[in-house]
């Protein structure tokens, strides 16, 4: 019996699609310029002309949230895809070729986990100089570094359980080379756990990017980022809470949707392991 994914799942998917489209087409959509200050609207609450209100200097919060999505989504997507390719490959190799290769890879990956992510990040931030491009590069690089080990672990565990199956043995008996076995026999079976886990990793990266931006170390202004908006809004929290609240809500819903979709997909593909 196949489980249904349910209405909330599709609602979450729809939200993510709309957000992604809005971020991609932000330049052609009829929204306000995120850098434009509207005179006399400083700290004004949500209204019909400015849906999410205006920030401390009178910029439109709604369009800044949309443009902020660009940074969050680009960095987390690129980071996740790269980490997925590298981590997935390492995990499959580690799970398939047991013994020595496995032991080395596992040890290295475990060792890479001993520096707490945000602290490692801070250490790497010392390499940042003002330039925005370089900053994005280092951000993505660190995020990839952070997510390789968790992904490799999940994939390794999945590979281990598939590599022992009869059809893999059959393929090898027929003389298939390791590469073929890995990519034609094992990969299709491991892929579902990849995909659902990658969404959860992506949600995690959005949070990390948000934290980094909150500390003022992500992409430098004037580029809007969610974390930075929430942080800057704190100074006006008592008089105009919406400046922090709006990006916070959008970020919360995005992370929630990603987690939810990832969870549901995992249950859908692997009902047995769905308990976690």
């Amino acid at each position, binding site marked *: 019996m196949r489980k249904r994914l349910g209405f909330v799942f599709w609602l979450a998917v729809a939200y993510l699609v709309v957000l992604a489209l809005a971020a991609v087409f932000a330049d052609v959509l009829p929204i306000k310029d995120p850098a434009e200050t509207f005179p006399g609207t400083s700290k004004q609450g949500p209204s019909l002309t400015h849906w999410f209100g205006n920030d401390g200097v009178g910029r439109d919060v709604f369009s800044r949230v949309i443009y902020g999505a660009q940074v969050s989504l680009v960095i987390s997507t690129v980071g996740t895809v790269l980490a997925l390719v590298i981590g997935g490959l390492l995990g499959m190799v580690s799970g398939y070729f047991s013994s020595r290769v496995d032991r080395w890879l596992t040890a290295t990956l475990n060792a890479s986990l001993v*520096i*707490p992510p*945000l602290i490692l990040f801070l250490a790497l931030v010392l390499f940042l100089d003002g330039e925005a491009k370089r900053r994005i590069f280092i951000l993505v690089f660190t995020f990839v570094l952070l997510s390789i080990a968790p992904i490799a672990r999940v994939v390794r565990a999945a590979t281990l359980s598939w590599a022992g199956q009869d059809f893999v043995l059959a393929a090898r008996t027929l003389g298939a080379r390791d590469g073929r076995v890995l990519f034609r026999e094992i990969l299709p079976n491991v892929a579902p756990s990849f995909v659902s886990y990658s969404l959860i990793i992506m949600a995690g990266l959005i949070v990390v990017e948000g934290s980094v931006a909150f500390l003022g170390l992500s992409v430098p202004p004037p580029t809007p980022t969610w974390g930075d908006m929430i942080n800057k809004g704190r100074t006006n929290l008592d008089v105009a809470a919406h400046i922090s*609240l709006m990006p*916070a809500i959008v*970020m919360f819903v995005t992370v929630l949707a990603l987690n939810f979709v990832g969870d549901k997909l995992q249950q859908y593909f692997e009902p047995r392991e769905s308990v976690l």
Partner: protein
Amino acid sequence: MKQAVRDQLGRIVAVALLATIAWAWFWRPPFSWTFGVLVAIGTVGAGIADGRYALRRIAGVIPVLVGVSFVVFALMASLPGDPAINILGPAATADQIAIVRTELGLDEPFFNRYGNWLGGVLTGDLGTSIVLREDVADGISRSMTPTLQIMAYSVVIALGFAIPLGIWAGYRQGTKTDGTINNVMLGFLATPNFVLAVMLVLFLSIGGLSVAGNEIGFRVLPAARYVPLGEDVVLHFKHMLLPSLALAMGQAAVFMRLLRSDMIATLRLPFIDLARSKGLPTRRILWRHALRPSSFTLLTVVGLTVGLLIGGALIVEFIFTIPGVGAYIFLGVTQRDFIAVQGGVLVISTLYIVVLTMSDFLYLSLDPRLRGREVGARA
């Protein structure tokens, strides 16, 4: 050694660990002492639980520590720009730069510098901070107290939420109660801790949103500042509540989900049926019989999340202006003080490794079925 004796000794060790922590809190000896005593007691405890395993595990930790110290040092050494110029500013003369470089030991080859630094680290000397002009080890041990406090409180709060909810949701698996608990916790899981912190400040300390002149929220808790425990106990906890809550709720969700799934698995086992048929009350079955065998994964993950907590503590310290280690490193980063940063990162990583290893040992002493077997407790 007989198992019964071992179990008793294990309990004594646990009490000794807690006593050391309490001692450290009230008498505040130098941080390195506390740390040393904790490690020593932990090692003895591990040896009691399973001697050979403990030795092998500790032997495995040493290369990791050396590796981490090397990576941290290499990272800082390969920073672009001359640290001497960073200290003196762009207007410095060549002579001044040369003097500062000698003072920092920068004119020596890389491996000599690494050796010198490592030698210093082993004797508790992390160098002198460039910007603060202060001993880094002193600075870190001073800022360690608030950080450890936040982390400890938030683990306690997280477990306080997670254990009852996890047990209950597991027991009521598939019902509306289970669904509700799960969804609420999923919500907390999706809330980044800085967002939660800002929301907590908004709704609990500055009065919340005002809609048509009415406040939706409270002004019951202070929003910032750190009050040491020794100064005023009540104020201390009042000020620590919001930061700890902000850090705890995400962890609570993770813990609760783990405990729930393990509870479900445990409750299907035959010995639960036996307990039930003896007529034991449900509460007793859940708390006394099912909880212990269900809590092993949880325990390991509590150890693992210390890394996340440190990162989270950094954010929370930043928001609530608490002078912790995170704030210390953050200051170092923004002022390009590489000596402070490398000291801070090293201490935190070491702490994390030690906690991970300890949680492996704890795992071993809690689950008698695993003794004598290899445990890769990092799930």
